[in-house]
């Protein structure tokens, strides 16, 4: 058993409301009173692409949820679409924990990016949304403009985090600090300017998207 599975089992054991058992390999079953049982695969992958997602879905019978246990785990857009179409929830261990109690493991999405994904999709001036990665969205606006938006969830994004996002995911027009308590460090704004993108919070972004 790898450490991710061990930790997942141990975490459920100490939470109390649920019990988790090891079904073999990377697969566990979580049993919660008054809630549906959840079969979850705990992956150690740092990057979940479509092939990985398909693989888990085909090899694990009755898979409800795919859990990226590593904090740095990145989900590619095709993998997300495949899982959502096939009624497999996806996200971090925290996402799995809440989904089990909410009884919606099959439809749960990554907790960190869920609200901002929805905000973009529901916002009037946004016509289409193409999710390239869990945190990278390409949107087309009513005025025809296309923007690539990257999300940073940290409390106080640093210049280094701005550059890291850019290096890893390529150029973006806007970096959106989606943490409601967050404010980017001045150095992060500066780093964004040097790279050619703006770093902003939702209030600024909504105005930017509504610009005619």
């Amino acid at each position, binding site marked *: 058993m790898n450490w991710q599975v061990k930790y997942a089992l141990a975490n459920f054991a100490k939470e109390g409301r649920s019990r988790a058992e090891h079904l073999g390999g990377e697969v566990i079953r979580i049993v919660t009173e008054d809630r549906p049982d959840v079969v979850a695969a705990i992956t150690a992958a740092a990057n979940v692409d479509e092939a990985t997602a398909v693989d888990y879905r085909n090899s694990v019978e009755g898979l409800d949820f795919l859990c990226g246990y590593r904090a740095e785990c990145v989900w590619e857009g095709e993998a997300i679409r495949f899982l959502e179409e096939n009624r497999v929830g996806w996200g971090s261990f925290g996402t799995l924990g809440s989904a089990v109690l909410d009884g919606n493991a099959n439809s749960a999405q990554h*907790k960190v990016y869920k609200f901002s994904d929805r905000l973009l999709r529901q916002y009037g001036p946004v016509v289409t949304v193409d999710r390239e990665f869990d945190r990278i969205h390409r949107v087309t606006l009513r005025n025809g403009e296309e923007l690539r938006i990257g999300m940073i969830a940290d409390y106080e994004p640093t210049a280094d985090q701005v550059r890291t996002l850019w290096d890893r995911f390529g150029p973006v027009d806007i970096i959106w600090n989606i*943490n409601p308590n967050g404010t980017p460090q001045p150095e992060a704004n500066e780093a964004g300017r040097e790279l050619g993108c703006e770093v902003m919070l939702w209030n600024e972004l909504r105005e930017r998207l509504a610009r005619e």
Partner: protein
Amino acid sequence: MAERKAIPAATRLHLFSDAAGFCQKPDCLEALFPAEMGGDKHIAEMAHVIPHGDAGPRHGDRPADDFDPDAFENLILLCPTCHTKIDKDPEAYPRNVLLDWKANHLARLAHKQGIRAYDDREHARAAVAGIMAENRAIWEKFAPEEGSDFEYDPESATAPAWDERMRSVILPNHYRTLAIIEANLGLATEEERRTFAEYQEHVRGLSERHICGVSGRAIRFPASMKEMFA
């Protein structure tokens, strides 16, 4: 009237941390970020000991040499009531009285809050532990990223709630803890003194962020604080 610059953030921060969140008039010591006011309201007012103009309260006390009315040394943090009092009746509140309030504020506040030096570590620990437990409970519920009620919702209402709690409860608790540890530093080990120094920096970062709106300098709460005087 002379052109006035805004008081620099560094001065405001210094002033706030010196006042530890309470009015500096010794018979008042009112909380400047009252919990019951909610939202982002506060009642702190920066009062000039010596005014900018030649007509303001206590202008007669102005020192002869060149003098910056907006310097930290010339400001005192008060609640609105006390600010009004000292400006309406400058005779009763001359410069030396105000400077005495400021110089002895922390000692008076500590006395009011029952902070004292203990004979043994056990009592010092008990004094610190209760306050830190309250902070931890709030943190576990609302803290950015880690709190159980925290959601990455850019439109979330818990964010302002967090800011409000930070100023009305968490920060005053931290200042109080700092005062208790300071009063009992004689009981601390070398290791604990280092923890204390780190902790001071943590509180300073929190104040910068939540009082002065300066982000990006907060250092984490030192885990070793849990073992303080243990």
